């Protein structure tokens, strides 16, 4: 399904060439860790053990995993409220991540941010925003910072299809192009913005086609094909890292669980939903990998993921809520309660 607009270097010759088996296994491992975390989180919500809002990334695991696989720890990622997969793929450990989702003091942000605002700068997870599209201009700033400091760090910013209609998207792509910033704009096109299908809110068939308005390469790939996306993202990230400037990468994918926990998805045609779930990329990729790895090897990855997730949940569940004295700290510099924590 690859489509490239005004393209060039960002599109490698053959997007289907599989990388090293170890890389493939790593993609599988990351996606599995995401899926297991998500499944457990949802089942705990369903049972009432966890409350709150939750935007499941189930189905979109590879949109995160296949891109982040190219990133170094000191590269930057910006994501959104539907950010669990991006947070895990960038390397944020599951324990403090889960603790943050529960608003515990041991969370990445001391429980003050929550799922929609996770940052973990030591892992390059720089911003999670709850405001649609707002991450794109900030990603430019991260990329500019690398450029000004003379490093070869790359910034990846993830956002949805609906976000491509907001002003911040336009301003960010224009500026990134003019300044030739080392940034990759990854649109995780899951075909819906809340309950609105793509075509009802978006005046273009392929969001990657909008790249031409900024003289930027734009590429639409199957975001559920781990290899195709891995190759495309690799090209875009290499391009950014070597001074070639920004790319708009559109990864076609699907939200298996709707917009938000509790969404019944009645607005999605039954066949569309059934077909998407039947083509679960994680299941498909596992089947593919069975040609290269033994069942034992794959099962070991899965068991390790399940164990890690169970451990993270246990850690988060038993962690403390922040003390009330934390309410007024961290508004300004020098107001942290616990100097050691920073």
């Amino acid at each position, binding site marked *: 399904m690859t489509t490239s607009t005004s393209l060039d270097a960002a599109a490698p010759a053959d997007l289907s060439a599989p990388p090293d088996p170890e890389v493939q296994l790593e993609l599988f491992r990351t996606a599995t860790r995401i899926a297991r975390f998500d499944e457990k989180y949802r089942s705990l919500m369903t049972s009432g053990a966890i409350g709150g809002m939750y935007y499941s990334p189930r189905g979109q695991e590879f949109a995160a995993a296949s891109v982040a696989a190219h990133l170094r720890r000191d590269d930057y990622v910006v994501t959104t409220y539907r950010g669990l997969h991006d947070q895990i793929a960038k390397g944020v450990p599951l324990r403090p991540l889960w603790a943050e989702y529960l608003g515990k*003091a041991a969370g990445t942000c001391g429980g003050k941010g929550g*799922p*929609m605002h996770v940052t973990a700068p030591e892992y390059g997870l720089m911003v999670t925003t*709850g405001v649609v599209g707002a991450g794109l201009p900030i990603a430019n700033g991260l990329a500019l910072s690398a450029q000004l400091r003379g490093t070869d760090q790359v910034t990846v910013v993830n956002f949805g299809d609906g976000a491509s209609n907001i002003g911040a998207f336009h301003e960010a792509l224009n500026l990134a192009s003019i300044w030739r910033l080392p940034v990759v704009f990854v649109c995780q096109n899951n075909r819906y913005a809340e309950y609105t299908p793509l075509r009802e809110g978006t005046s273009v068939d392929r969001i990657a086609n909008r790249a031409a308005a900024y003289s930027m390469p734009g590429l639409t790939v199957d975001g559920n094909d781990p290899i195709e996306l891995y190759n495309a993202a690799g090209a875009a990230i290499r391009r950014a890292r070597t001074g070639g400037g920004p790319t708009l990468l559109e990864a076609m994918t699907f939200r298996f669980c709707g917009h938000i926990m509790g969404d019944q998805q009645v607005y999605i045609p039954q066949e569309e939903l059934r077909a998407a779930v039947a083509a679960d990329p994680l299941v498909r990729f596992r089947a593919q990998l069975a040609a290269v790895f033994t069942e034992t090897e794959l099962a070991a990855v899965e068991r390790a993921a399940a164990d890690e997730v169970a451990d993270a949940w246990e850690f988060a569940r038993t962690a403390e*809520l922040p003390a*009330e004295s934390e309410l007024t700290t961290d508004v300004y510099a020098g107001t942290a309660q616990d100097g050691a924590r920073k």
Partner: protein
Amino acid sequence: MTTAGTATQETARTLGMVQAINEALDVALGTDPAVFALGEDIQEPGGGGFGVHKGLGVKHGAHRVRMTPISEQAIMGAAIGAAISGLRPVAEIMLMNFVHVCMDQLVNHAAKLRYMSGGRTPVPLTVRTATGAGGGFGAQHSDMLEAQLVHAAGLKVVVPSNPADAKGLLLSCIFDDDPCVFVEMTGLYFAARGPVPAGDHRIPLGQATIARAGDDVTVVTYGRQVADCLAVAEQLADEGVGVEVIDLRTLAPLDTTTLLGSVARTRRAVVVHEAVRRNGFGAELSATIHAELFGQLAAPVVRVTAPDTPVPYAKSLEEAYIPSRSRIAAAIRSTL
């Protein structure tokens, strides 16, 4: 789904906030072809951020209950253009924090066009938006920003506290000839229930109401905090303290007559709101009360507000953030 808009019934049914607002929209859409609604996901199945438009798209048509892309500037601009050419748009900005995404349209354009045109270009639009802490939505989905809008000359700002007022005030906003911002506190959506008059029930803008009479101290508040203040008032009544609770309903223009009349009598005032303290609306209230009733007060006006922090996510902190009944009670006692 509602009978309103067809015939005015004198009976008042018990409704929740979402239903009451839905009914106001239904009546307005049914009454005046100039009225239309626009916003993200306001048709089925969402009916907007909190389902306020449920059923209205089907009943009044997709052209009058219009789905928009995620484009707050485009939403607000479309509302302004429609308003200055004779229509009465009701725009939903899903959450109040996103008003900042289209602040220029709202404050530099909607609020100013009448004045800048010497009265030739009125802007009869209504912006509905939801917000409030307590839902675990975190720092970007919970802010009460009414004070920033009150500071924008030309806007009217309304924050209802119960379903009947919500219906009556929203209808007044829609048929008002000025830009109105109607703030719906999420905490009330599913908590507040109450009797709601059917039909084209309107409550004039700019009129506060005395939600509870009392002689010892006046508590000035609005929105979700009204219920908390009433509960505290009941509790203090047992101790023999007569607390008068004023529900401002409209913040701009402010009903200083009711406000100052009450405080002149009680000589004590406590101002309660959920927004942060620094330059919150409580500052305007406190400044006005102190200056207008100088020498007549028995105690300084106390402000009970959120602390000057973003809204925290952690439950323990979010609870501490929101003015609690015990903080309200303590503030009242401190004036006695």
